[in-house]
C-alpha cells in the first residue's frame, strides 16, 4: 500500500510516500521505522482514511494511510 508522508517525516524519508505492505497498524509502524532512519525518535501519529487511529487495528490494504508529525497550523 502507498503510505503518505508529511512534514518532517517526509523530510526524513526523502519522499512524500512509501510503498509498504502491512496487515495491522503495529506491523506498519515497525516497517516504517525500519524503512525511515530516525523515525522512531520522532513523534508521529497514523491516520487511516483521514482519521487519526491511536490503537492497533487490522488493515486490508485498501485504506488511505498517512504518517503525520505534530500539527502546526495557525
Amino acid at each position, binding site marked *: 500500500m502507498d503510505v*503518505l508522508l*508529511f*512534514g*518532517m517525516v517526509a*523530510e526524513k524519508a526523502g519522499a512524500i510516500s512509501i510503498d509498504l505492505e502491512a496487515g495491522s497498524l503495529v506491523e506498519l509502524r515497525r516497517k516504517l521505522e525500519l524503512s525511515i532512519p530516525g523515525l522512531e525518535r520522532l513523534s508521529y501519529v497514523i*491516520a487511516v482514511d*483521514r*482519521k487519526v487511529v491511536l490503537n492497533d487495528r487490522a488493515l486490508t490494504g485498501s485504506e488511505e494511510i*498517512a504518517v*503525520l*508529525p*505534530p*500539527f*502546526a*497550523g*495557525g
Partner: protein
Amino acid sequence: MSTGTQHRKRDIFVEGAIPSSFIAESIAKHATRTDIGAHEIFLGQVRADAMDATGEGTTVQTVSAIEYTAYRDMANEQMITIREEAFTRWPEMTCLHVHHSQGVIKAGELCFMVFASAPHRRQAREAVAYVTDEVKKRLPIFGREILSDTTHIWKRNT
C-alpha cells in the same frame, strides 16, 4: 456528509499569504446580511521568533518565514466536523469562514483567518475562539520554520 448551505464542503487552503484586501472584501460581502449584528475575526500572523537552532544557546536565529504544507483532504474533512460542532454550539451564528495558507509565508504576513458573524457578539466571539483552537489542534497542517541563516526547524503547536 452534510450538504446544507452553511456546512457545504469547501477548501480552506489558499496559496501564499492572506492579503489584507481579502479580509476587507470578506467583511464587505456581509453588508447585504442585515440580520448580522457582530463580526469577530481572528488573524494569525507569522512571528519572527528567536530560535536557538542548535540547542546550545550559542546561535540564535530568527524565523524569517514559515513554509506550510498540509494533508489537505483530511484537513478539509476535519474542518467540516469542527464547523458542524460550532454551528451546533452556537446555532444563532450566521456564517463562519476559515482560510489557511499553504506555501512560504514571510514573517509579518497573515497565514490564518477565522471569521464568524452572528446577530450578537457573544456567539461570534465564542465561536471564533473555539474554532481557532480546534483548527490548531486537529488539522494536519505542518510548518517548516525557515531561519535567518536558511536552516530550518519544524514548528509544533503546544
